[in-house]
């Protein structure tokens, strides 16, 4: 059930109506639980049962930590929870990847190997809810939060349908207090939720799905297209994945908001980032924060030597890449971004005392240059992310840097440029400090007219075919 389908609209309207009609808080939680279970089992009923059971397991482990204060037992329970979650994640997501890598390794060493391929279906959203479950038991172990006593509340924390399949990765400390809090109907909340959903639909249906028409055929056969067009596809993929994923996140946040829950924002105008560190603070924020809090900082973070800290960063970003998928291209993408971050750190250290250079980079043209360079670096890394293999990435890079001729763009260039300009203008407008207050000062009929027109355009411009959200595969 995709967020941008009529099926989801009907599902959500039913849940929304039943939820707000019910006066009892406990029953509302159960309605959301039932709806979430239904939402997930619409993909695969068996996998829904697996999530349900693992979630109950994490609940019991955390309760055990609360019950037995002995540090040894708490640690053992934590290890059990982490290993259990990682084992499930590895079995479903990485087992075949590791087995295949092992086979290739043995073959390249001259040994013949007959390694079986496991017949497993990847549960949608497994990377997201596994990380949520791990963060919960770690936080309970660290004493940051108490173990949740009510099973239904804990189940809702993991299974809540707006964030279940593609995040944002919520933290128990943020979410569970909201489950306990009594919800009251609020028009401002409804309006904000509606705006978020509308924005997400526009990003997904108008921009991401249209960019897919440019990107998919070119990445399938990069050698067949001229160099400029392959560059368009590379840039188009950055825009596509941003609009696809942030569009999903917006709809998730909006749906949650309409049900009285506030989820963490996942994107903050990432293409306005003036350096790669800034970009990673704005891109997939919930994952970046998770990696920082549960991998990078426990490894020592910035408090160790510069070399050790750089190694930690590289390791954390490589894991971030592996989190995205069972493919060496994702690992390489993560490592490349880790390298970018390290290079940026070195650059900052080296230029700390170069006031003239720093001042030049702070000017408006200098800022544009830094934004463009950051976007370029990110776009080049996304070629590796998008490619199914290194050979495919190499073919794309060859075509990008070899000035070759070939077929023209699969979509009219004016469409590409219009969509790209829309993303740029949206970044510029949304970053203006007085934009929000100006918007809210407008008369309601004007805002209504703008939003109704926006919805109208959102329904008219999508292409005939819609694609699944890219992050569903992770």
């Amino acid at each position, binding site marked *: 059930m995709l967020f941008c389908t*009529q099926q989801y609209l009907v599902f959500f309207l039913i849940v929304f109506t039943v939820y707000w009609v019910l006066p009892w808080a406990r029953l509302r939680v159960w309605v959301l639980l039932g709806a979430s279970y239904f939402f997930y089992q619409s993909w695969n009923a068996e996998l829904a049962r697996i999530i349900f059971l693992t979630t109950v397991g994490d609940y019991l482990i955390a309760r055990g930590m609360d019950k037995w204060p002995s540090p040894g037992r708490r640690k053992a329970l934590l290890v059990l929870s982490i290993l259990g979650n990682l084992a499930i994640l590895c079995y479903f997501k990485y087992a075949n990847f590791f087995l295949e890598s092992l086979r290739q390794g043995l073959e390249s060493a001259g040994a013949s190997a007959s390694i079986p391929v496991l017949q497993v279906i990847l549960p949608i959203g497994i990377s997201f809810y596994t990380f949520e479950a791990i963060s919960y038991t770690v936080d309970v172990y660290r004493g940051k939060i108490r173990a949740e006593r009510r099973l239904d509340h804990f189940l809702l924390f993991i299974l809540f349908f707006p964030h279940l399949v593609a995040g944002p990765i919520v933290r128990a400390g943020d979410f569970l207090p909201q489950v306990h809090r009594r919800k009251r109907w609020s028009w401002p909340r409804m309006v904000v939720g509606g705006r978020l959903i509308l924005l997400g639909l526009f990003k997904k249906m108008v921009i991401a799905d249209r960019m897919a028409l440019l990107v998919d055929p070119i990445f399938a056969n990069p050698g067949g297209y001229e160099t400029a067009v392959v560059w368009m596809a590379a840039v188009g993929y950055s825009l596509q994945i941003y609009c696809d994923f942030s569009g999903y996140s917006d709809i998730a946040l909006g749906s949650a908001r309409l049900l009285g829950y506030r989820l963490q924002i996942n994107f903050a105008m990432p293409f306005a980032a003036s350096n790669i560190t800034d970009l990673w603070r704005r891109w997939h924020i919930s994952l970046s924060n998770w990696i920082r809090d549960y991998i990078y900082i426990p490894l020592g973070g910035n408090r160790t030597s510069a070399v050790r800290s750089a190694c930690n960063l590289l390791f954390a970003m490589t894991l971030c890449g592996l989190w995205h998928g069972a493919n060496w291209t994702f690992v390489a993408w993560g490592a490349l971004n880790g390298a970018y971050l390290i290079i940026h750190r070195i650059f900052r250290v080296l230029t700390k005392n170069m006031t003239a250079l720093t001042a030049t980079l702070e000017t408006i043209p200098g800022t544009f240059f830094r934004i463009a360079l950051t976007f370029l670096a990110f776009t080049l890394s996304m070629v590796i992310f998008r490619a199914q293999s290194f050979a495919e990435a190499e073919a794309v890079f060859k075509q990008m840097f070899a000035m070759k001729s070939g077929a023209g763009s*699969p979509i*009219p260039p004016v469409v590409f440029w219009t969509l790209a300009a829309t993303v740029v203008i949206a970044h510029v407008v949304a970053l203006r400090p007085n934009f929000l207050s100006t918007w*809210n000062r407008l008369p309601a009929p004007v*805002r*209504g007219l703008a*939003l*109704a*027109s926006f919805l109208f355009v959102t329904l008219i411009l999508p292409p005939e075919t819609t694609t699944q959200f890219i992050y569903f595969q992770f």
Partner: protein
Amino acid sequence: MALVAPRRLPARSEFFWTLGLFLAFTALFVVYVEMRHPEWYDREYQVRRGLLNDRITESPERPVVLVIGSSRLVAAVLPERLGPIRDTEGREVTVFNYCRIGAGPRMNLVQLHRAIRDGVRPSYLVLELVPGFLRHDDLPVKEIAIPDVGLLWKHSNKLRLVASTAGLRLNGVYRPRTALLRSIAPEWETRAEHDRGPFLSELGGDNNWVLLEEPSKSERELLHSLAVGRFQNRMQTFRFDPYLVSAMRELLEECKNRDIKVAIVLTPEDSEFLSWYRPGAEEELQVFLANIRANRVPVFDSRRWMTDDKFTDPHHLKRRGAEEYTERLGKEVLIPFVGGK
């Protein structure tokens, strides 16, 4: 923008203004499409209408022979393969394939009215009769506009008709978006949709759209299973649906009133398809056809004209079957019917 909430009262009025204006825009848009661009709901009709208008503009003096029917005739009638056909006064006629995929008696009625609404004055109508479609045809709500709904009112379950058409209008902006873009901003039209066709010749004949030269084994199996799913049970439980018979009668009545000469053609079926008829169905069908003939409407039964090797599935012809069928249709139906021979 989205994350900062306005105060309560402005928020409520913003919500109602947005909703009200969107509903108003949608209503205006739907009315506009229904009244001015019904073809936006039906790409095949849009393409055929354009081609037919072009042919009439090229040779306005020629009487028009419209062939109306389902996918069987969409594939089987290739007007370019017909030699010149002249009417009783010696004028050469324009034979145009005006069929529509999936059309049963109700859609045929809609097709005739669409042509008339578009200013086409056919002198002759070759009307397909598929016995299975007198048992059941799919209510063509997705392809029709409000004026056509009125046309189907007498010939349909009214509750179902209203519910289906009203339900589709709730989605009134999203549904015809491709046709709208094609007309106002063609560069935004999705190429994938455009590539699907329909690809037709100048006279509405198939131009490598649905006709196959020789289907592969998997294509044959798929087409066969579709035909079995759609028709086997219909033929084994054959009876005349009063709604569908009344739609066909209204079409014949309309032609009589407008002085359009009609010939009815029962289209080819292979031996497997013919074996699906329940015992007694053929006799009831012959009585029905005799009633039509009694009203001076000629009926041509071409169900057994083609051998089984000319079919891609139990009731659609291959390309060489279509070529052979068209030539025979010309000689045995069109020339006698139009030329009065």
